[in-house]
């Protein structure tokens, strides 16, 4: 293709694109004026006048909407980070079970993966919450010397309390994600050439030692990208908190939209909070990736 032809094509597409964009924005403005909503963010500093069950930082209903949103963002972060750790742990175990030698474990983990992967997360979350945690009933709570309490209100552990909403979300997300992580781990292990297995076997090195010392280090570079995208999915899926009554960023946005009708503004805020979360996760994974590559100077 000729150079000016290329320029022309790009120019044309840009015009169409920005034209369309302009029309949509124009419609939006007309609609906002028509419905008398307008577009501004000053409401952010008005008192929220709703209470939150969970707030890692002090919060009362007379705090501003902005602060409520920030608390929601922290709540999201909290559930994301903790389920990320739990999911990785579970997923690795299941991934190993799937590639390992105990065929009963292999069979069970295969069954686990198909069941978890083929039912909607939303349903699983509701199941965990309403059946799993709330099913504990009041009378069925386990108590060990006032240090460890389990009831349908949640778990209390030496002063730390985790609400059952948080726990259901944590479990649901972790279990759902672990089924995917298991497949990532398995894929990574399979990506190491058969020759490496044969090489360590022919040196008389045991299976478990070989898996840990020879195979896993080589599988890591193939595992990390898959893991990153699973973590990102997990972060996005955490918005289903709304189904189990956990106050994450999406749920709080939803409440605010109902109270103020500021759908567009709230949507923009939601967008940016997620871009921020994604940035956090990808950067953290990038650092981990670099650390791994650094410790493996060979490639």
């Amino acid at each position, binding site marked *: 293709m000729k150079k000016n032809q290329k320029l022309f094509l790009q120019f044309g597409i840009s015009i169409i694109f920005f034209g369309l964009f302009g029309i949509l924005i124009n419609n939006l403005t007309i609609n906002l004026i028509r419905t008398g909503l307008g577009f501004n963010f000053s409401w952010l500093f008005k008192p929220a006048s709703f209470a939150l069950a969970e707030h890692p930082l002090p919060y009362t209903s007379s705090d501003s909407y902005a602060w409520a949103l920030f608390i929601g963002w922290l709540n999201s972060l909290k559930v994301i980070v903790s389920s990320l750790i739990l999911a990785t742990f579970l997923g690795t175990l299941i991934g190993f079970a799937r590639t390992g030698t105990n065929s009963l474990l292999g069979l069970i983990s295969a069954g686990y993966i198909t069941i978890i992967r083929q039912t909607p997360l939303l349903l699983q979350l509701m199941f965990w919450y309403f059946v799993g945690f709330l099913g504990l009933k009041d009378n069925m709570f386990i108590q060990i010397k006032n240090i460890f309490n389990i009831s349908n209100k949640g778990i209390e552990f030496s002063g730390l309390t985790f609400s059952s909403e948080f726990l259901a979300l944590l479990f649901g997300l972790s279990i759902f994600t672990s089924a995917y992580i298991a497949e990532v781990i398995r894929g990574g292990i399979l990506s190491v*050439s058969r*020759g*490496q297995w*044969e*090489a*360590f*076997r*022919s*040196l*008389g*090195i*045991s299976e478990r*030692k070989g898996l840990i*010392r*020879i195979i896993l*280090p*080589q599988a890591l570079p193939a595992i990390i990208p898959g893991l990153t995208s699973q973590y990102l999915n997990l972060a996005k899926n955490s918005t289903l908190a709304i189904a189990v009554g956990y106050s994450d960023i999406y749920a709080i946005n939803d409440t605010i939209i109902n109270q103020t009708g500021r759908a567009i503004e709230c949507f923009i805020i939601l967008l940016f909070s997620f871009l921020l979360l994604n940035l956090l996760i990808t950067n953290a994974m990038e650092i981990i990736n670099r650390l791994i590559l650094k410790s*493996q*100077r*060979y*490639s």
Partner: protein
Amino acid sequence: MEPIVVAKNLSKSYTKGLRALDNVSLTVNQGKVLVVMGPSGSGKSTLIRTFNGLETFDRGELNILGIKIDSTHDERKIQKIRRRVGMVFQQFNLFPHLSILENITLAPVHVQKRRQAEAEEYGMYLLNQMGIDSHAKKYPSQLSGGEQQRVAIARALALKPELLLFDEPTSALDPERINEVLDAMRKLARQGMTMVVVTHEIGFAKDVSDQVLFMDSGKVIETSPPNIFFSNARHERSRKFLNQLDKQ
């Protein structure tokens, strides 16, 4: 002379009907070199890999270094055999994330429980023997193919094996690198190492081997001393194969 490898009527098939090994029997005595030849897919790799339990078999019996294994594939016996048998692969199969010296010391330290320093010392001695001691701190990817294959040989030697298996050790190498590796293998043979070598290097086979075993479709077609095999092979199939090798 003790027999190091005795195979009796080994048979194996991957897919039903097609035999990768078909009633293979052979004996390799202490200090001898057996070269295995045959067209692609004839079962050479499968055969040699049964010798250290990388491959199971369906029928027959194996006796490696006095340890008997059969089709039940007893993991404990195989582990014992592996500690006393070294293997070198076509694709080197070095561990890319470990340095050359770490590649060599890994098994002595973790399998034979030797001390790190002792293992390293012996490792350096082996690398020196192979003429690559200057690369000890490098990683496999920084070495040429010929050098990598010599590291692989040193790694197999580190466990002080009583039998060495080679599966086409030179066929992944550049023409110019092949001789480096063949020379190292010649040296080992001269030192009295018992070896089973799958290769198509006629020069090497003529030079070093005591017997040449020719396979086709999983069967042993003939076993002859090299001077007879290369000048006057008994079987039509062997002659045809040698012809084709020459033509290139």
